């Protein structure tokens, strides 16, 4: 140790600089993120690219949730798309009913008026359903829809996961259960075409609370709402992790039995963090539907659910901010590939899973950590 200290004169200075840069990055990571999301992105992109950015940010919500329960709770869910889909579909139901209620703004309603079923969503008319199903009724009102988006998915996530965790269904078993849920939801949505829009999903929305969604003004408003909500989600995640609850969670992740013997209800903690993840996913899904104008089973099933895990994995499973960058980068890559050579996208993302797991288990944030770790190590020899 001492020997190193005497010889490490010049690299030391370099390491210190590096150390400082990385520390600043970490300290100001949040500020940089806010700066990027609220100023750089909206000011530098045209409306089309802004829409894409907004879409990517929506996918960052479930990714932030995955960091919370995967990175810190040790629970891997391959069914995050279920909750994303719940938020997405609830918002879609509201938007669809609003569009259907304003006849002159919706193309399908001329047909609906002809069949005497005005006020019904167009796809129900096509499937010859004459009465609005009961579970659509509450979504006439925005003040039921928004609380439902915030409360229902976490509640369902909590109940489902608590029952599992209490019976010590954990690890890969729980993961398979989440996989099954993703499969069930996709199957039901596709199977019940008359009630859910089937494989085509629910689409063709006009307004949100009277705001025409096609105008660029609406696009900016929605982008800002999404960005602010995302920053709030990251802050909330940070708050949870910094609190005692977060520490207990990590303890449960590393030594579940020991934490349980110390008197903590491990199942409760794990179910709670899983529910938080579901909440974020649901909000992301709702914002997605408003901005992209689509709720689709292709965002619910197994494939998209597992894709959401890669967002968190690329950014770093222990980094909330990393999840945001991960979601933006993976989705950016997806857009890039589908614009240029679509056939290589699957190769790319498949390779990504293998590469990240094998060589970058802590993702991009892990690279930062490694640089800082090296710097720290050098710093210690100094003493």
């Amino acid at each position, binding site marked *: 140790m001492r020997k190193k200290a005497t010889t490490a004169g010049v690299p030391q200075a370099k390491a210190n600089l590096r150390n400082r840069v990385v520390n600043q990055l970490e300290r100001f990571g949040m500020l940089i993120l806010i700066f990027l999301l609220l100023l750089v992105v909206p000011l530098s992109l045209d409306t089309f690219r802004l829409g894409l950015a907004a879409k990517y940010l929506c996918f960052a919500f479930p990714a932030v949730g995955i960091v919370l329960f*995967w990175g810190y709770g040790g629970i*891997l869910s*391959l069914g995050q798309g279920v909750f994303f889909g719940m938020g997405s579909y609830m918002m879609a139901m509201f938007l669809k009913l609003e569009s259907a209620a304003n006849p002159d703004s919706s193309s399908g309603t001329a047909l609906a008026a002809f069949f005497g079923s005005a006020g019904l969503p167009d796809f129900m008319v096509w499937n010859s359903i004459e009465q609005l199903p009961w579970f659509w009724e509450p979504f006439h009102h925005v003040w039921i829809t928004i609380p439902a988006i915030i409360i229902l998915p976490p509640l369902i996530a909590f109940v489902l996961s608590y*029952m*599992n965790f209490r*019976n*010590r*269904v954990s*690890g*890969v*078993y729980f*993961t*398979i*259960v989440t*996989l*099954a*849920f993703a*499969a*069930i939801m996709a*199957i*039901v949505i*596709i*199977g019940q075409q008359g009630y859910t829009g089937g494989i085509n999903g629910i689409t063709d929305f006009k307004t949100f609370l009277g705001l025409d969604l096609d105008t660029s003004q609406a696009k900016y408003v929605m982008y800002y709402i999404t960005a602010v909500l995302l920053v709030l989600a990251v802050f909330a995640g940070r708050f949870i992790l910094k609190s005692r609850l977060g520490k207990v969670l990590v303890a449960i992740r590393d030594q579940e039995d020991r934490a349980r013997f110390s008197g903590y209800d491990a199942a409760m903690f794990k179910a709670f963090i899983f529910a938080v993840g579901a909440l974020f996913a649901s909000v992301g899904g709702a914002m997605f539907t408003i901005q992209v104008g689509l709720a689709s089973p292709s965002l619910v099933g*197994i*494939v998209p659910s*597992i894709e959401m*895990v*890669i967002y968190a*994995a690329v950014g770093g499973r222990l980094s909330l901010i990393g999840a945001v960058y991960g979601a933006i980068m993976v989705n950016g890559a997806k857009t890039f590939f589908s614009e240029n050579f679509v*056939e290589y996208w*699957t*190769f790319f*993302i*498949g*390779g*990504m*899973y*293998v590469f*990240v*797991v*094998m060589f970058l*288990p802590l993702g991009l944030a892990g690279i930062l950590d490694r640089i800082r770790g090296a710097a720290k190590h050098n710093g210690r020899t100094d003493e």
Partner: protein
Amino acid sequence: MLAMQAFTGLSVFSILMLMALGLAIVFGLMRVINMAHGELMAMGAYTTYGTSLLFEAYFPSLMGIYFLVGVVLAFCTTFVFGYFLERSLIRFLYERPLDTMLATWGVGLILQQCYRQFINPRPVSVPTASWLQGVWQVTDDISFPMSRIFIIALAFVTALLVYLLLHKTRWGLLIRAVTQNREMSGAVGINQHRVDAYTFALGCGLAGIAGSSFTMLASTAPDTGQAYIVDTFIVVVFGGVESLLGTILSAAVIGQLQTWLEFYLSGSMARAGILLLVILVLYFRPNGLFATKVRR
């Protein structure tokens, strides 16, 4: 009618069993979740497809037995692939089961795209051998297609072979030893890494057989495997990962249930119902329905 239903159930059961056997070995004995299992089935199916093309071109007189050759070749291909997959990827991840899921999912996606790009993006199907095209007419109302009977026979023979391999041969002894006590088996001089590699390869090979037999029922598309993966997992988890017998029993239960539910509900709703039911059962029996061990 009743007999037909039961037969369909038996047929679904044999397919589920074929799919789940390989996974049960890899998951139950090695605790590795292979999400690429479905793609390995597709690999077996494509191997059979390739064999049929080969026979058509060079030995048209032997078309009758090409399928048997195809099954063997499918096993060999996936066995070799599984061996190299274990050596190059899986063995580094034994300590991280959740990460294994992600990595193997990635492998599955890559395989899928390979099929799409290098074989055929559209579904392919194989010719059925003439002796499998017939129908066994039991009575006027009851008739069983020969191909289904063949698959049922194949499934049972495979299950029997796996049982014999695991319980009556030296290799099986080694596999069980490593499974039960890794450190101790290492201490008495068993090369665990070799056993791991061959066990994994065996599981993959069984996927190949399953895929091969699928070609007789349906055409093979690049994403065929993905459609089956959840059902396969569910069968294994439902039966309890400890025993092969549990897997076989659970395949029987799920196969029959699915058939009967499909009789009353639409096909997709029946699938959803099965999944839901299995999840419910897991609440009450987290170790699986047929797990004998209570101790953990």
